[in-house]
């Protein structure tokens, strides 16, 4: 960009700056822009910095002075401690919760990706009846709030009735010696509070977006590639595994990061399908429980919160490019 005069200049001087060749550099206004950007960035960071600093201070120090006072007394080592983290990890079960979160997140990321990649390829490069309608169906589901699915899936997971077919009762009574009033057809399930149940739920809820994004990407690959591969005698399966998957790595990575962090940070699905018992609960559940139990134990709350954020932040800083692409593409998720 060659234009550099900021819009704020206008309100200050009362008259507009005439743009010349688009290269005017006004040191004063440039500094003003810098200051404004810096102020916004600081406002954005202060809450998080406060959390991090507090998590490293002793309970006594936290209670007696605000976290911002440490900048005046940074050398006072008596206020610093790692004890908060030890306490939260061991006594409050955050170590186990961290592991549980990983056990939930990794399969819940990979499963929808594999299923969606197959579907995305079919939607892009295979001809079949109903292709358009099936894909419109996926697009329609993109924004459906998952709240709609919670109660029925919960009942399903509890082994509740799948279908009430009581209108069949007279038929059953007629055919069998028993007097039947209600007939329910279903598969007995006991998936509540299991990792399997949560994986499948996240797979289902993540699929529309995964199929949509991957189909956009795979569909935009050059068709010459497929044609030349087909001429060389490759069938769909070979093209898919040897050509499409390697070429789609950027899109797969972007979606993988989005889905991983979505599951990692999820509270709702875990609350409903996995629950709050210590052996299966994930970080967000543990943090919420801590928050309910120790409203004002800031040394524990801040350390716990930071533990729940550290992995997403590492992902953020190390894979920023994929991360931004994935988060922005994935924000439509229902």
């Amino acid at each position, binding site marked *: 960009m*060659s234009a550099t*005069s*900021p819009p704020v*200049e*206008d*309100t200050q001087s009362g008259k507009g*700056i*005439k*743009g*010349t060749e688009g290269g005017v550099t006004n040191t004063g206004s440039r500094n003003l*822009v810098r200051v404004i*950007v810096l102020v*916004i960035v600081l406002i*954005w*960071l*202060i*809450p*998080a910095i*406060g959390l991090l600093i507090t998590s490293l201070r002793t309970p006594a120090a*936290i209670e*007696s002075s605000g976290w911002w006072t440490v900048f005046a007394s940074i050398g006072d080592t008596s206020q610093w401690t790692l004890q908060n983290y030890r306490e939260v990890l061991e006594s409050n079960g955050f170590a186990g919760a961290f*592991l549980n979160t*990983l*056990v939930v997140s*990794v*399969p819940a990321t*990979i499963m929808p990706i*594999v*299923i969606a990649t197959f*579907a995305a390829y*079919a939607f892009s490069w295979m001809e*079949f009846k109903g292709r358009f309608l099936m894909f419109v169906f*996926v*697009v*329609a*589901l993109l*924004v*459906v*709030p998952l709240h*709609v699915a*919670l109660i*029925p899936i*919960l*009942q399903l997971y509890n082994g509740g009735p799948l279908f009430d077919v009581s209108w069949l009762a007279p038929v059953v009574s007629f055919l069998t010696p028993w007097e039947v009033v209600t007939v329910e057809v279903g598969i007995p399930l006991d998936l509540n509070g*299991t990792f399997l149940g949560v994986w*499948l739920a996240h797979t289902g*809820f993540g699929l529309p977006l995964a199929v949509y994004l991957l189909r956009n990407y795979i569909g935009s690959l050059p068709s010459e590639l497929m044609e030349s591969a087909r001429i060389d005698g490759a069938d769909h399966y070979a093209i898919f595994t040897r050509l499409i998957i390697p070429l789609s790595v950027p899109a797969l990575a972007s979606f993988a990061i989005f889905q991983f962090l979505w599951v*990692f*940070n999820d*509270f*709702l699905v875990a609350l*409903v399908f996995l629950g709050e018992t210590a052996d299966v609960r994930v970080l*967000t559940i543990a*943090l919420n429980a801590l928050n309910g139990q120790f409203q*004002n134990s*800031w040394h524990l709350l801040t350390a716990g919160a930071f533990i*729940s954020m550290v992995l997403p*932040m590492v992902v953020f800083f190390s894979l920023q490019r994929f991360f931004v692409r994935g*988060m922005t593409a994935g*924000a439509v998720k229902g």
Partner: protein
Amino acid sequence: MSDVLSPQQQAGTDEEEVYRPPGPRRGSGIVVFILAVIAAVAIPALFFVALEATFEFMESQNLSPILTGFVAILIAVFGVFGVYTAVDLAIRRLPGTLSERVRPYAWAGPAVVILLIYLVYPAVNTIQLSFLDATSTNFVGWANYEYVFTDPAMLRSLRNTLAWIFVVPVSAVAIGLGFAVLADKLRRLESLAKSMIFLPMAISFIGAGIVWRFVYAFRIEGSGEQIGILNAAWTSLGNAPVDWLSINGWNNLLLMVIMVWLQTGFAMVILSSAIKGVPEDMLEAARIDGATEVQVFWRVVVPNIMSSIVVVFTTMVIGVLKVFDIVWVMTGGQDGTEVIAERMIRNMFTFRDFGRGAAIAVFMFIAVIPIMIINIRRFREEESIR
């Protein structure tokens, strides 16, 4: 097509006729359909059975969660892929054109079947449940919907959600757009500054809730120093400390601040790339005509990025409609801070009233239908361009 075909074209069509593989041509539609359904259902079913069997085995062996997780990851990767491969191998053995006609459904079908199970069936079922009582046993007519539109807490939640839908997207778009424009003018550190605004996108709503509860922390006057930064700033101006999260009205605004803090990065990134896409010569032309930077921004940049602003706005509206974690962890919906998604979970999870919960869910579903239609329309337009 013209009546006169070149020799090559004629040869081409002939060849096609000659080399079409033998196999059923007519009346095989039903066969294809049945096989397609079988394939589409078989893949998720096989996968589910394999996973459940493994899990039950591992549970019976009392293995550590780490090992369980590790095995699960292996099955998730190779299991899904393996099931697809096995079914694909089976389809290849089908006679004639049948295999090529069934195959697409084996690839695309499982995703559709899973969506039917996890989203479509529940959506339909939720509508049914919304006419039943708390335990889904007796028909209660419109009673649950009456609750949605008459209960005081529900009405507050509707009012609050409307406020959220207005305040959060507008603020996030305004701040994000302003920041994108300003950061764009920095030579260095532009991407670093943007990263810092985007950072909250990485963390959970629950984590963000703790961060901000600490910002709003309150102590009764005289019981020690204010350790929440907002109250510290407020009292340093000579005011008495305030329990921010319990002042009716303002507490809602303070909760919205958290959502703005989380979501501005999203608006900023999308709008920033849209701004960079505005043609440079258009900007130059406006400047040569004597437009001020402010005029350039409002009359050239904003109209050019309007479609991006609309996308960001609608996306955020959906996000805000579903917000519940923030309220859950900050106030628990007390002091007039209820929102609609929070009411839904409260009714379903805390009160175990599935009827009312379902009615609220149906309401949320209806609220997103316009956006769903817009999405489908936009998709169809894109497809017709293709």
